[in-house]
């Protein structure tokens, strides 16, 4: 885990758009009166989604004011959790799982694909500023290893070629279909019985 610092280039201001504002309010409503600070994590996440996957300082300030808590407290939370991005990561944020099961199944081939298509280094924006990639720890889809996550969607059962195709689509602005890329439904067994129904002695 590298040192997490806010980006040098910051937008001047940030405001919740109507959809985010509504989401924020519904979250705050879950907490007792005067305990609205508890919503800070959820609000940071909402801000991150609204602002193409990263949280500018202005957003932290906005949340601080919104929840009536000191800026430094929001800043503390935002720097503590690794899933908050403090610098731009592009509209398409690609996270490649490189924990053991995925690694054994060839996750580093996916990393190579990202290096070719997006950027040489981790956390570096692509030329058109639209995406970046990063290695992360287990995303909990070991059965479909290797896999990667783009924004909210999982792309599973990949290899280098499939990844390259997905990235091409992403870079041209299309949204590739999420899920398994070996024709599986979710994580069903492959090339074999799918259920126990036709097994007599089961």
């Amino acid at each position, binding site marked *: *885990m590298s*040192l*997490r610092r806010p980006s040098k280039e910051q937008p001047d201001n940030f405001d919740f758009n109507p959809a985010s504002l509504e989401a924020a309010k519904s979250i705050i409503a879950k907490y007792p009166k005067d305990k609205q600070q508890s919503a800070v994590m959820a609000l940071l996440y909402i801000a991150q989604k609204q602002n193409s996957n990263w949280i500018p*300082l202005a957003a932290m300030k906005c949340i601080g004011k919104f929840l009536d808590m*000191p*800026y*430094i*407290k929001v*800043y*503390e939370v935002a*720097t*503590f959790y690794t899933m908050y991005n403090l610098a731009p990561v592009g509209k398409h944020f690609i996270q490649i799982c490189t924990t053991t099961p995925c690694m054994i199944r060839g996750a580093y081939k996916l990393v190579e694909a990202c290096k070719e298509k997006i950027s040489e280094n981790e956390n570096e924006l692509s030329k058109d500023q639209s995406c970046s990639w990063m290695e992360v720890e287990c995303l909990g889809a070991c059965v479909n290893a290797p896999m990667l996550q783009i924004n909210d969607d999982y792309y599973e059962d990949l290899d280098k070629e499939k990844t390259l195709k997905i990235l091409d689509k992403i870079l041209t602005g299309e949204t590739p279909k999420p899920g398994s890329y070996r024709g599986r439904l979710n994580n069903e067994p492959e090339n074999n019985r799918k259920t126990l129904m036709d097994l007599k002695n089961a």
Partner: protein
Amino acid sequence: MLKLKVNEIDIEVEEGLTVLQACEKAGVEIPRFCYHEKLSIAGNCRMCLVELEKSPKPVASCAMPAAEGMNIKTNTEFVEKARKGVMEFLLANHPLDCPVCDQGGECDLQDQSMLYGVDKSRYKENKRAVSEKNMGPLIKTQMTRCIHCTRCVRFATEVAGVTEIGAIGRGEDMEITTYLEQSMQSELSANVVDLCPVGALTSKPYVFEARPWELKKTESIDVMDAIGSNIRVDTYGWEVKRILPRINEDINEEWISDKTRYACDGLLNQRLDTPYIKYNGKFEKASWNEVFNIIKSKFKNTDKDKICGMSGDLVNMETLYIFKEFFNKTLGSHNVESRSDHTYLNSKKRENYLFNSTINGIEEADFILLIGSNPRYEATILNARIRKAYLQNKTKIISLNNVGDLTYPYESLNGDIENIKRITEDSHEVSSLIKKAKKPLIIFGQSSLKTKSAKYIFESVKSFLKKNNKMSDEWNSLNTISENASTVGSFDLGLYKTVDGSNEVLKDLENHMFEIVYLLGVDNLKFEKKNEFVIYQGSHGDKGAEIADIILPGAAYTEQNGYFTNLEGKIQKAYKASFPPEEAKEDWLIINELAETMNHRKLFNDKDELDSSLLNQINLFIEKDKSIKSSTVENIEFKQEILKVENEDYYYSNAIARASKTMLECKTAKVNLKLTGTEG
């Protein structure tokens, strides 16, 4: 009471204490870094581990409540091993730079590693390095040394009331910083330097100045405001190197304001070190004999009613006393005044100018009304107490004016004196709040006593309180925040000339009625000089010396023994830590010698005689004051006026602060922060 055992010794302690506190009661010292009496419990340094019978693991004593029948052991091998382990982890990332660290010699980590440290390291890995943080002109950071005790974070949040310091990142990457590395917006900020158990936060103005064992330590009293904070003055030869707080639970607890702590470099600059005489608009050095003789002939040739004496804000009581004696006895004049502006003073009884509820009493109060006061700047330590009271009891606080952030929430009225009228006539919601409260606090700030309606405000509120029985021997809710360290002292000694509370001497002075003006450390006087002959006695070449014709170089508060009475009326003695520079003399001595020149007789034979005479006078005065019945003045004409709270230039309020580079830096840091517009 709980019965428990510490190292096989039976003790009884009150309920609600922690194991660490119980051990301290039993006389057992527990090493600690994060625990601090005045702050909340964090329990994150793990240095205070002890063995608890029936507990398989060592227990962090600072966070463990003491319970009945506990058997605590602190001297076993088990405890020693646990603490050694903790110390090894703390030192894993702590740099070995004690020789270049300012904390060396008074460092908790250094001291405790002598007991629990292992002589060699088992770590081959690199130590972590952390970038330095900007925390303003007072605090130097060396964050590599930080052991993450979070005392500074808790102090800023709890005591100072400015949540600006925090811990960002996590695990090994955790770092303490202010929000976006701005300086901390608090007048108590430098207390984090004392709190820091290692050398991560050190004093910027004191950087590489001296080692603690080289310094002479003198316990003394602060004069930067009327609180009378207890301080320790550390000197190296003549120079005052630094000022630290001393614990006094009744006054400043463990804290002092930044001005108290850092104005001391002003003691080195702008000093008057020899007598001066002004010839043709230019100051020339002179000898004491010359100046005394000139003054003598001037005094001899002038009508005694044409002479006046004004005393200043940092003058100790011995000097005030001998100054008054000199005027009354040697010159036969009664034109002596200690107020350098038109402050209203009801001198009939001492309670009229004291903070009667006492500073400790603030914590008991159940309602606070501020009239024309910004306690944050007028009395920083007192403001911290109000915040403490607010945190403990959620005390309701109302201010007549909106004076900005006071570090606690308060309601504000619009500043119109009409409000006071309505409160005292029982037709304002505040009236019932005062009446309902068992222990209300009504605090008059200087701004309220300087307005044209000062008399009306003060006397009508006083009679309202009196009428509602809020001024008894048990609880006197009438409180004034005095302006300066010498204010209460000079009122006690009678350095004023007034019938109805106005400042008659100053009025006459402004009308140019006097021929000779003797200024005793007066630097805050707004006065256009015409033909007056001005004698200035004081320590700094400031506003007073500028208009002087003769300068008598005196001593600063660290250079002479002297009594000061704080705003509660507590008399305290400041001790001599250093000596006056070159030709300069202690202030009382100058006046005594001048008196000797005048009519060949000293006023006092020595300092002891002066001291005992002064204390006698004060004791008599206080005795007499007790027998006077407190009275009220009725029927004062009401005039419509809007009360304005003048925020005095906090970092520039007296001659010493004005001569201090550090105070200038604080001032610019504050101005710059305002300019960036990032504070809101």
